[in-house]
C-alpha cells in the first residue's frame, strides 16, 4: 500500500467521523423555526421541538419573581393571532412591548408554548437609536 493510499484512508476515516458527528448533532438539536401563525395553524404536538419568532405583546406579560415564572404572549408583526408562552426562569432585562423575541420549546396540548429558552435582541452596531434590548436566557 502506498503512502498516498494510506493517507487517503486515514483522511477518509476522519472525514467520515466528522460527517457522522454533524448528522447526529443535527438530528439531536434540530427544531422547526415557525411563525406564530404557523404554530396556531399547525398546532405541533409536545413531542416536536419548535422555535418561534414573534413580538412580545406588552399587556400580557406576567412575572412572578417568587416562582420565577414568566408568562406572556407573542404575535407576528402586524397580525392579531397570539401565542401564549410560559417560561420558568428569570425575566430578561427590558421585556417590552413589540420587541422581537425567539422562543424555543414545545407546544403543550393546551396550546401554550412551554419555553426552555428565550432569545431577545442584543444591542449591536448598525441599528440607529436606543431601542434595542438584550438577553439570552435559558433554563435548559
Amino acid at each position, binding site marked *: 500500500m502506498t503512502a498516498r493510499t494510506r493517507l487517503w484512508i486515514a483522511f477518509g476515516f476522519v472525514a467520515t467521523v466528522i460527517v457522522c*458527528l454533524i448528522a447526529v448533532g443535527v438530528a439531536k438539536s434540530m*427544531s422547526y423555526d415557525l411563525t406564530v401563525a404557523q404554530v396556531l395553524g399547525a398546532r405541533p404536538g409536545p413531542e416536536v421541538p419548535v422555535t418561534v419568532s414573534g413580538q412580545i405583546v406588552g399587556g400580557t406579560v406576567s412575572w412572578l419573581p417568587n416562582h420565577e415564572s414568566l408568562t406572556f404572549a407573542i404575535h407576528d408583526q402586524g397580525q392579531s393571532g397570539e401565542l401564549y408562552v410560559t417560561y420558568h426562569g428569570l425575566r430578561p*432585562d427590558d421585556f417590552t412591548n413589540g420587541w422581537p423575541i425567539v422562543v424555543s420549546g414545545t407546544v403543550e396540548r393546551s396550546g401554550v408554548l412551554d419555553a426552555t429558552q428565550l*432569545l431577545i435582541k442584543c444591542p449591536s452596531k448598525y*441599528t440607529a437609536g*436606543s431601542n434595542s434590548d438584550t438577553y439570552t436566557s435559558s433554563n435548559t
Partner: protein
Amino acid sequence: MLVGDVGRSALFLLIFVVPCSLILGIGSVWRKSLRLGTAARWSVVVQFALIAVASACLIDLLVTLNFRYVYVADYTSRGLELLYRIAAFWGGDAGSLLLWVLVLSLYLLVASRIRHVHSEQMIPAVIAVMSFILLFFVLVLNFVANPFVVSAVAPANGNGLNALLQNPGMTVHPVNLYLGYVGFTVPFAYGMAALFLKKTDAVWLTVTRKWTLISWLFLSCGILYGARWSYEELGWGGYWAWDPIENAALMPWIAATAFLHSAIIQERRGQLKKWNIVLVSLTYLLTIFGTALTRGGLLWSIHAFANGPVGTVFMSFVGVMFVLTVAMIAWRFPSLTPDVRFEAAVSRETGFMMNNLLFIGALFAVFWGTLFPIISEAVTGSQMLVSGPFYDSVVLPIGVALVLLMGVGPLLAWRRSQLGRLGAMLVWPLIAAIGIGVFTYALGYHNLLSLVSYMAAGFTVVATFMEFIRAAVARKRVTNDPPLRSIYRLVANNRRRYGGYVVHMAVVIMVLGFASTGAYAKQITANMAPGQSVSVGDYLLTFLGLRTVDRPGKEELQGEMLVQTLHPFATLGVLLPSVDFFISGDQPTTNMGLYSLPLDDLYVVLDGSDFKTGQSLFEIHLNPLVGFIWFGGYLYVAGTFLSLWPERRKGRTRALARRGREAALVDLADLEYDFRMGKIDEASYQQTRSLLAGAAADRDPSISGRSRLEQELAARLAVAPVKGES
C-alpha cells in the same frame, strides 16, 4: 456644511480615482510596463488621501454633533462622551463601511510599497485586485450607504448611542474585527496575482505571511474581546452563544488558522499549492460573507443588526467574487503542481494536513449549522434550525482532536517519521494524560468531554515541553553553549516555530477554561431578604441590603452582597450587582457584580427588587476557570508577537531562494535537529542528508566541496562544523 461637503466630494471623486488604479494596474501587468506600475502606485496614494479626508470629515461632524447629517443624528446625541462620538464612526452601516475602506486603502498603500523578487510584476496585479474590491465599497458608500446624507431639517438632538454600547469595548471589539477582516484582502490579492502571473512558488506566501498573521491576530483579539464584553456586560453568565453573527466572525478565523498551517508546507516543501490558494480565497470570501450576514438580516440573530439593502448588495458581491475566484483557480489549476510528492504517510507534512482536515471539518460544521435554516427550507420547504448543543457536539470533539494534534505534530519529522521513535516520544505525554484523567476523575469531575479535554491538554503540554527540552539539549551538545544561552538562541533563531508553540500553549490554557465553564458552571437563582445567605460551591454569599447611588443621567440601584469562602472561612469582599435607571426614560440595564479568583468567577446579577421590603432576586453564577480564557488570550497575543518578530536570518530569502542553497541549508538544519532529537534513525538521516547535500551543491556551483557545505550548515545551526552525532 463645508466639512460635510468636502467629505461627500472626496467620496465622490473616488468613483473616478479607484477605476484609474484598477486600469493602471491591469495595464501595467498587460503591457509589462514599469511606468504604468509606478502610476498605479501613485494612484493608490491618491485613493488613500481622499478616503482619509472623507474619514476626517465624518469624525469632525460626529465630534461637533452636526445633526444636519442623518448619520450623526442617528448615532450621537448631546452629552455623549467624546470617545463614543468618535466610536460612532463605526457605530452605523455607512460609517463602518467608510472605516472598512479607510483600512483597506491603508493596507493597499503599504502593500504597494513592499519590495521583493517579483514585486515589479506582482504589485500592479495586487493593486488591480484590491482596487476592484475597493471599487465595490466606494460604489456602496456613494449610492447605498452614504454617511454624508443631509436631512431637510436638523433635529434638536440625536438618537444617541445605545447605553450598552457606551462601553470601552465599543472602541476595541469592532475595530479589531475590521482590521482582521480587511487584512485578509492582502494575502487574497497576492494569491490571485500569483495565480494570474503563474508565480505559484512560495514567494506570495512568504511576502504575505505577516499580513496573514497580523490579520489573524486582530480577528482573534476581536472575537475574544467580543466574548469578554458579552460576558462582563450583558449579564447572562456566558461568553459565546453560537449565534449566526458570532459564527460569521469565527468562520474566517478557522479558515485563516488552517491557512497559516498549510502555508508552512508550501514554503518548506513546495506542496499543497492548490490547497493554499483555495484556503486563502475561502478565508477572504468568508470575511465578506460574514459581513453580508451581519448586515443583511438573512438569519435571525440575537444581535440587532440592520436589515437594510447593504446586506443584499454584499451578498451579490460575495457571489461575484466567488465566481471570479473559482474561474481564476480553474484557469491556472495546471500551474499549481507540487514541487515534490509526499514521501510517507506519517510525517510533519501529513500532520499539517490532518490539522487542516480537522479545521475544515469544524468550519463546515459551523457553516452548516449557521445556514441550516436556509438549507432546510430550500430542501424540505420547512425552516429548521440547530442550536448550541449541535455546535458543542461537533466542534468541541474536533477541538479536542486538534489539541492532541498540537502535541503530536511537533514530534513528527519532516519527510518521514518512524513510528517506533514517535511512539517512544509519546510515552511520557500519554502517562501524563492518563495521570491527569485519573486524578480529575477521582476529584469528582466526571463529564466525559471535559475529562478528555483535560487529558488532551496535559498530553500536549508535556509533549511540547519535552520537544523543547530535546531541541535545547541537541543544540547544547553541539555548541557547548551554557543551557540558558542555548535555550535563548534556540528560540531567537526559530521565533516563528516557538512563537507558534506559545500560541499552542495559550490555546491549551483557553481550552481548560472552555471545558471547565462548559461542564461545571453552576447557576442558581436566589430570592433573598436582607441578611439572608446562600452558598454556591465553596462560597457563602450574604445579601446585606439595597442602596441607591446618583450618577450623571441615571440612578443606580445596588444590591450589596458579602462574599466569603467556607474552607477556610474568610471574607473576600462585597459585590455590587446593580441596575441603572435612566433619567431619559430609556430601559433600565443591569450591571453584574463579578469577583474573579484564579480558579473561579463569582458572577451575580440583580434581577429584581421590592423597594419596600428589600427582598431581591439574584442570579448567581459560579464559573470555574473562566479566567483561563482571558489569560490564555494574553499569552496568545504574546506568542503571535514572538512569531512575528523578524529573525536574524532573513526568513524571506528562504522562499525567494526556494530552489537555492538557502533552502537546502534550511532543510539540512531541520534534518540535523530531527536526528539529534531522536525523531529519525541514523540510516534515514544519512540517506536524506546525502540527498540534500548533493542537491545543495548542484543548486549552487559555488559550493565546490563538502567542507564548504558543512561550514554553511554550521553557520545556520550556529554550531561547530557538523561531523555526525557527537
